[in-house]
Every structure is written in C-alpha cells, then in structure tokens.
C-alpha cells in the first residue's frame, strides 16, 4: 500500500524524519529514566516525570501546529497522508477503557470478552465499504454537515448535532475520569488535580491548533500507546514461552490454562474456600432480610466481645482488634444494606468454581445439551454476544469523531487506504490484548495460586496499596496459602501491573500508565473538537448566522471547545462512577442515530430529508428508551421499579440491535410517503458515487 495521492512527496518524507527522531528521543528518555530508577528514584517521582513530560509534549505539538485557518482547523488542511491518518484514527478511537480495560475484560470473561475485539475491529469493514470513501468525496467538515447537505432542511442537521453531542459528551467525561484515575494512581496526586492537568495539556493542543494539532499529537500518542502495550506483553511471553511474539504462541499457554482450570475445579482447598463462601452468602442473605435488626445484633455482639476482653487479661492487640471491629461496623441501616449487598455479591461469585469466571477458552455460558435452564443460559449468552458484536461494529462505524478523521486525507483513494491502515494499527494492539489476558492468567494460575500468603510477589501488595479495588485477597480458610477463589482482581490491574508481572522495572509500569494517559487524552481531544465543530459550524454558522466571517467561526469554535472541556472536567471531577456505563451505551446510541441515515443517504437516492430526521429520532429514541428502562442506575434515576422487562433477554448495552433496524425501517417507510428529494440532492449522490481525486 503506497501513500496515495498526497501530491507532496517531500511532505511525507519530512514527516517520516520527524517521527523517527521522535521515537529515538522517546527511547533515550525511557532508558535514562530506568537508569535513574536504578539510582533510587522513587515510584512517585517517575510517575510525575512521565505525567508532566508527556502532557508537555502534547501541548508543545499543539503550540507548534497552531492555526486560525478554518480548513486547517476543522480538517487539518486535508493533506494528512493515509498512513499517518491511520495512526491518528487508531489513537482517536482507542479510549482509556479499551487500552486499560480490554485485557482485563478478556481476563475476566475469557472467550466472551472477545465480542469487544470482534466488534471494535469489524466495524472498520463497514467504515471502509460503506462510509469513508463517500464522506471524503463529499469533503465537508463534520458529520452533521453531510446530513445537512444531503438531506436539506434544518432537521437532519439538527438531529446530527444533537446525537453528536449526546454521544461525545458522555464519552469525553469518561476519558477525563480515566485521566484523573491514571494520574492519581501514577503519581499520588489528587484525582481532581490529575483531571485538570490532563485537561490543560489537551486544551492547549486542540484550542490552538484544532484538527491539525490533534492529528500530529494523536500520531505521537499512538506511538506511545503501541510501545507501552507491546513491550510488557512481549517480555512476559519471553519469560513464559521463550518467544517474543506472544500473538503466535499463546495458543499453547491457553491449553495449559484450560488444563489448570479443570484441575482447580477439583482441588480440595478450592472446594473448602467455595463452601466457606457459600456459608457466608447464606449468612449475608439472612442479614439482609432484616438489616436494622442484624446490625443491632452485630453491634451488641461486638460490644460484648470487647467488654469480655477488657475483663480478661487480654493483650492490648486483641483489645485494639475488637475495638476496630466495633468501630468498622456500618453506621446506619442504609450503610449496612450497601455493604452487605456488596459482600453478598462477592461471596456469591466466590462460591462458584474459578470465582464465577467462565473457563477461558469456552464460548458462551451454559450448556446446549444440559438441563433446560442451562440451555436457556447458553442461548441467551450466545445471543447477547452476537448482539454486542453487532452494536460495537455498527457503533464504531457511526462515531462522529472517528468518521470526521477521514475528511482530513487528500483523496478518496487515500481515504480507502487510510481505513486499512487504521485497522492495521488497531489490530496490532488487538491481536495482543487476548494474549496478555491468557499470559497473565497462566502466571496467576501456575505461579500465584498455592503460594504462601507471606511470600506473594511485590506487585500484589504494591498495587493493592494503590487501590484495594484493583487487587485484594483474603485467606478465608486460614491455611496460609493463596487459593484462586481467595484472590480478587479488578479488570484494570491486568494491564497496569503487566510490566511488573513480567518482572520489568517500575519505569515500564510508568510507561504503561503514560500509554493509558495517551489513549484517554487522544480520544478526549477528538471528541471535544467534534462537539465544538458540531455546535459552532453546524448549529451557529449553518443555521443561525451563515454570513459569519471565517475568523469569527474559528474563534467561536475555540470558545465552545473551552466551555465544553470545562463542563466535562467539572462533571468528571465529581467522580460519577455510573457514567462509565453510558460509554458502553454510546456505541449503541451512535449506531442507531447515525448509521441508517448515513448509509441510506449514500446508497439510496430516494431517501428524503423528513425521513432521515424521523429515522434518526426513532432509532435514537428507541435505544434511549430501552437503555433507560433496563439499566439499573438509570432506572433508579427515573424512579422506575418493578421487574426489568428485557426484550428477548438482550442486555441494555446492546440496545442498538433494536434502534438500528427501526431507524432503517422508518427512513424507508417515510421516504416512500414523502415526495422524492430535490434534484440537487440527487446530483450530490451521483457525485459521491463517481470516482474522483477528492
């Protein structure tokens, strides 16, 4: 694949030189930091150096690429070579969640987590075949821009703006939340400070240079992400298998993992732990039947025990322990209910083999040849897997910040090549994530399980000190050894601790965190610009004041960008943990709002403006309705109670399987009922379909 059609071969060569120099500097930077670590530089200091230097780097690229020209600001002058746009899109698209969380999800869910790998890569087939070349041929500035020009009238454009902002805003809040989390874990800084530090670097970049600055920053960020992801996995693979290419050899490790899983299911110590947790679950369930009474009994008991100890000649340590037990009881009924529900949830998974995790290599839960309940479980698990793949695929092909990137290449041919490069660069990471999950599971099953509690490797205690939610263990059967069901891992720790699990120095953990930071910042950059462009270009310039001067438009975009960024950072600083769910729903929302209108706009001349607006509204409306009535947190927000009505057992994350078909159906139906689109719209479609340089 050559870098087609740039028309400026010198430009491409110059870029290659710049980025080669950048990679060289980066390697020198890592090496000198690891030298400093060997001299005794602390973890916090290394973290802080990583945080500040990478944020400063991204801000610096922003300052160098500053611009006020609208074509540069909105679409980077449309001269980004296909390869570099591929890298930038890969960074734009890989969020903090997919960088840190994916390997963890694969660790926890095994085969069933591969829905994310399939959906998030397969979506690029849709982008390549159905959207990117035509959007580039259209040559607009934003996705609502395409809807507005193709369908005419204000409504399709308005719906486009609304859906862009709705999807992008929740997504950007989650990215900033991720920035705060990574910064605070890496350096010990306060969460809020981390959010605003990341925001600062990001704003300098996107505020000054728009799409141009963001593109070059994203390329730099992709390179950081790639090195940070591949290095620890390759090292771990050398340690376990002797091969530095884990993607080729982890099949045999997976076999060994499955073998050990079967062994553990029969292990007497594991069975002992499971039965202890079953008792615990029974106890908690009975406590939860009458929490206030149970709490009063617990308190009386703890008080009695303390009084008894004071009477006896007990050691001060025993008394202190008893005092702590009394002090740590929940303060009121609501607190007790929350605590016990959480403990019950944990106990109920720990009373199952492998802590409730499915066997790693087994597709879908349940058993198609087992009892009726198992068969039902199997059917529902398979249906949800495929529905999730569908939503993530169509959603990937509908996210406005990703699609807008294909406006920045020089030609239609470059757009096609660029999608291929994007998929290639994303696949580099996605071939590796399942390998990491398997290698870490192998390490834990064979090295960690059965180790004496007081001889656990240092990374276990180091990461549980950072956040007990990441990793914690409890020797519940008091045999002094760690059983698999005694260990709880949060999904993030798989990636964050990968370097130390592989036996690399902390500096590489710092690099991994810097990669995660790059993933969050690159995505947030693209999202902020998408929202700002939709509001200033489509809402203000196209609908309110079409006579606005170009300078005024760019200035307005910058102001909107700043406002959006501050609102998002403010919300992220409130730590709304529940918003993280909305990110996964963003794919379903984007899919049902944009996909039918975009595809039919290109492939069906008869699709009309009113139909497009109605279809977007119906698709988005149905998806929002389904999510709002089935997702626990949103249900409580809207004050819904009573049993959850799932349609065909589909989980709320895959609400798009209803919204997308409805969107198509409504557009088809309403188009037939309304007069055909005007000749200009038909001419536009003809132009999109013809081959062209641009």
């Amino acid at each position: 694949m050559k870098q087609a059609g740039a028309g400026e071969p010198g430009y491409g060569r110059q870029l290659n030189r710049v980025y080669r120099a950048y990679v060289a500097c980066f390697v020198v930077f890592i090496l000198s930091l690891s030298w400093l670590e060997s001299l005794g530089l602390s973890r916090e200091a290394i973290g802080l150096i990583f945080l500040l230097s990478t944020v400063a780097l991204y801000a610096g690229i922003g300052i160098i690429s500053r611009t006020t020209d609208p074509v540069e600001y909105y679409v980077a002058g449309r001269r980004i070579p296909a390869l570099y746009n591929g890298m930038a899109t890969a960074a734009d698209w890989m969020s903090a969640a997919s960088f840190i969380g994916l390997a963890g999800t694969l660790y926890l869910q095994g085969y069933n987590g591969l829905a994310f790998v399939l959906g998030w890569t397969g979506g690029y087939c849709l982008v390549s075949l159905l959207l990117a070349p035509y959007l580039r041929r259209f040559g607009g500035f934003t996705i609502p821009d395409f809807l507005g020009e193709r369908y005419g009238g204000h409504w399709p454009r308005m719906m486009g703006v609304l859906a862009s902002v709705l999807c992008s805003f929740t997504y950007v809040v989650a990215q900033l939340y991720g920035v705060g989390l990574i910064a605070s874990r890496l350096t010990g800084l306060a969460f809020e400070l981390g959010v605003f530090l990341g925001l600062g670097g990001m704003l300098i970049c996107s505020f000054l240079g728009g799409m141009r600055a963001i593109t070059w920053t994203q390329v730099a960020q992709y390179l950081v992400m790639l090195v940070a992801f591949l290095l620890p996995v390759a090292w771990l693979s050398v340690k376990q298998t002797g091969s530095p290419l884990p993607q080729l050899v982890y099949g045999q490790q997976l076999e060994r993992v499955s073998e050990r899983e079967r062994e553990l299911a029969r292990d007497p110590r594991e069975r002992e732990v499971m039965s202890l947790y079953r008792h615990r679950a029974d106890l908690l369930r009975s406590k939860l039947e009458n929490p206030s009474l149970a709490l009063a009994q617990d308190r009386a008991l703890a008080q009695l025990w303390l009084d008894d100890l004071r009477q006896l000649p007990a050691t001060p340590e025993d008394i202190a322990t008893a005092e702590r037990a009394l002090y740590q009881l929940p303060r009121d009924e609501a607190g007790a209910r929350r605590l016990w529900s959480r403990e019950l949830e944990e106990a109920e998974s720990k009373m199952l083999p492998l802590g409730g995790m499915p066997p790693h290599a087994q597709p879908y839960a349940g058993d198609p040849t087992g009892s009726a309940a198992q068969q039902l479980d199997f059917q529902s698990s398979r249906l949800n897997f495929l529905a999730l793949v569908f939503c993530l695929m169509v959603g990937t092909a509908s996210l406005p910040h990703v699609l807008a990137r294909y406006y920045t290449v020089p030609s239609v041919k470059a757009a096609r090549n660029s999608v291929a490069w994007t998929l290639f660069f994303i696949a580099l990471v996605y071939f590796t994530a399942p390998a990491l999950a398997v290698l870490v599971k192998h390490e834990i099953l064979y090295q960690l399980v059965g180790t004496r509690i007081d001889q656990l490797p240092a990374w276990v205690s180091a990461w549980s000190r950072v956040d007990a939610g990441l990793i914690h263990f409890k020797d519940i059967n008091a045999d002094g050894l760690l059983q698999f069901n005694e260990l709880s891992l949060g999904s993030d720790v798989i990636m964050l601790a990968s370097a130390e699990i592989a036996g690399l120095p902390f500096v590489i953990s710092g690099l991994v965190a810097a990669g995660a930071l790059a993933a969050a910042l690159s995505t947030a950059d693209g999202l902020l610009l998408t929202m700002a462009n939709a509001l200033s270009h489509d809402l203000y310039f196209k609908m309110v004041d079409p006579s606005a001067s170009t300078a005024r438009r760019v200035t307005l975009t910058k102001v909107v960008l700043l406002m959006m960024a501050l609102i998002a950072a403010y919300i992220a600083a409130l730590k709304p943990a529940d918003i993280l769910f909305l990110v996964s729903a963003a794919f379903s929302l984007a899919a049902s709002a944009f996909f039918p209108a975009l595809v039919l706009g290109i492939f069906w001349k008869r699709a009309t403006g009113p139909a497009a607006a109605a279809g977007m509204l119906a698709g988005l409306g149905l998806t929002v309705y389904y999510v709002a009535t089935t997702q626990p947190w949103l249900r409580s927000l809207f004050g819904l109670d009573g049993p959850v009505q799932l349609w065909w057992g589909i989980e709320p994350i895959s609400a798009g399987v209803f919204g997308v078909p409805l969107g198509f159906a409504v557009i088809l139906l309403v188009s037939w009922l309304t007069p055909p689109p005007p000749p200009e719209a038909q001419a536009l479609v003809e132009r999109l379909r013809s081959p062209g340089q641009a």
Partner: protein
Amino acid sequence: MSTPLSPERYWRLNRWLIAVGLLLGFVVTFGLGWFARELDFIFLGWGFNFWLAAQGALLVYLLIVTGYAWIMNRLDDRQLDAPGRPPA
C-alpha cells in the same frame, strides 16, 4: 486496462464488491460465531473457535479492507486516466 467503465457499470461493480465484502464479514463473524461451541477442534495448535474470534476474524477483516481499497483504487485510476474525461 485502459477502457473506462460507464458510470452505471462502475457503480454496479462497486456495489457488488461491497456486497461480497459485507457477506464475507458477516459469515466469519455471525455465521461462524453462531456455531462457536461446535467448532471445538484443534487448528495449528489452537482451539479453533478461540483462535477464530481472537485472530482469524481480524485477519479476514484486514483482507476485506485492504482488498477493497486495492481493487477500487486501481479501478478509479482507470476511470480517471481515460482519455476524453476531465479529472473531477
């Protein structure tokens, strides 16, 4: 290689390629995905169903995307280089 297609034939060929690409992607993802539990045999040292979802499908997607780009870009060159047709 030098005669350009008529716009109708160009578009028909493009649609045909798109349909083939989509069908291939659909079969690999949803068709084989539906029967993942049954596809439980060893393939080059891997459990086939796991390998397919973790690597095989991704390779097919890459093939679809690069293949489509390669064919269409060559077709576009032919359409645009043809004599008597102004560059768009």
